[in-house]
């Protein structure tokens, strides 16, 4: 049995689900960022697998953009953690309950 694009798609979908679950269930901001990375990288896997299956370069090209955007988001996220740390000395999202809603 050969490994077809469908397998990669399935793996990507599983990774995406794990990432989404981690984002929604974990309460440590750093772990949540890791989950986000997992989601974005699972998307990369889909792009590459689809691009290879179709024999075009666009899939791999998209990955470059996604990676850079992901890096920018992580940077913003780290900056946000630093700002929150300074006021709270915690990275737990549960303790941020100042606003109704």
């Amino acid at each position: 049995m050969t490994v077809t694009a469908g397998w990669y798609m399935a793996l990507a979908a599983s990774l995406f689900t794990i990432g989404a679950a981690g984002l929604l269930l974990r309460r440590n901001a750093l772990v949540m960022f890791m989950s986000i990375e997992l989601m974005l990288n699972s998307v990369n896997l889909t792009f590459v697998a689809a691009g290879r299956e179709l024999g075009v370069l666009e899939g791999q090209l998209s990955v470059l953009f996604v990676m850079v955007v992901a890096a920018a988001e992580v940077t913003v996220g780290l900056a946000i953690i630093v700002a929150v740390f300074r006021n709270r000395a915690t990275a737990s999202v549960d303790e941020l309950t100042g606003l109704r809603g």
Partner: protein
Amino acid sequence: MIDYHALAPELLLAGTVLAVLTVDLLRVEKYWVAVVGLFGLFLSFIPVLTLGFCDTLTFCEDTGTRFLFGESYAVDSFSLVLKALFLGSAFVAVLLSVGYLESDRFWQGEFYFLMLSSVLGAVVMASSRDLVTIFVALELVTGPTFLMAGWRKGDPRSNEAMLKFFIIGVLSAALLLFGMSLVYGTTGELTFAGIRAEAAGIRGGDLEALFTVGVLFTLLGFAFKVSAVPFHFWTPDTYEGSPTPVTAYLSVVSKTAGFVGLLAICYLAFRDATFLWGPALWVLAAASMTVGNLAALRQTNIVRLLGYSSIAQGGFILVPFGAAVAAGVTDVQLEEAFFATVTYLLIYAFMNLGAFAVIIAGGNRLRSAEIGDWAGMFGYAPGLATMLAVFFFSLAGIPPLAGWFAKFVMFRAVLSVGGGWAAALAIIAAVNSVIAFVYYAKVVKSAFMDPAPEHVAVADLARMPTVPSLQFALVLTVAGVIVLGIFPGIIAEIGELTKTFASGF
């Protein structure tokens, strides 16, 4: 060869972003950063005009829609109108920020850098015609706004607003991207034109299920961005916790950018899949209007009230999309729906920015956003109270203020489609317009009729001036709301131009 004239607005704006960063390093008064930013916004507005009036200018070669980088980037009347809207709204947003940032301890230089970068993203968004470009543009719009939302660094509420906004924003980006990757995987195309061509062959085939999931995830991502119910829960918190000028920016520029992306992707890429996005957006529109308005009724904080009101307005903007739910909707009807959405977006920008300008001006005096404290404003600040009434009644859709025309075209688009579903949506929208009027009128009544609360030092407040930049912003938006309300032909003319977009390539 690259058509530099078509790219001029983006290039000038990018240059401005760099200039702002450089000016910030120099030892000058920080308001110069804002001045450079305003000048740059004005400068990049000029090529938008020259491109728009290309057929009447001698030096400009009128080539119709200009495509760049393959079919990934298009400069047509739709994108030009939206670019003008983004640049204009950003101009007002910078004006709102100037006085606010100087009133407290803020880092100013970077703020304008971030805001202008975000505007650059919005401007690129208007022209994006492929999945990757639209994703990068969307991230460029939202990325800086995460940081702007937390600009009051020492304030835990601002921190919280920032963190919530960030997590939801990134989650929505991931969902959007996952949808896009599935759409790409099934169609093999990134450009909207290509997807539209390929999508026809997918229907009924093996890949239809995956394609459907891709389309729905893409819509889901945008639903977060435009804070449609049930993906709205971050909105009130972020709006309340952020500095008010940032809230104004989020509710107008960032939100409009989301709608522009949704418009482009629905009407170009998924044009032949109205049976997929029509029902989904029908539900979102109905839920956003109802939940937004009902929640707004109970608010005591004026910024939160406007937050829920903007969710409800987002619902009204989604209504023409939802009208496409009817099977066999014709091209003419889709064009009408498209026209209605664009018109609503244009008018919404004026009235919502104006409403926030009033809130910033009032908040500067009162140091409070509780509606109870705003009572009796007519007594000591009659001008401000009158403008509050103008913007709130415009948001409620009372003629002769601009808001009525937005609502009018929205209803016209829905009713032109006809059928049970569209009629139901029209009824929901009508009921919601009445509910909305109640809470808008309540605030205005309180400002005009009720006596000022005792802890408000009326005599001091009467003497407090409004910052000049804020006055300028107020004059611009008030003029816009009144002129467009009395002469809706202007906006109809502009909206008409964009219809060619919806009629396809």
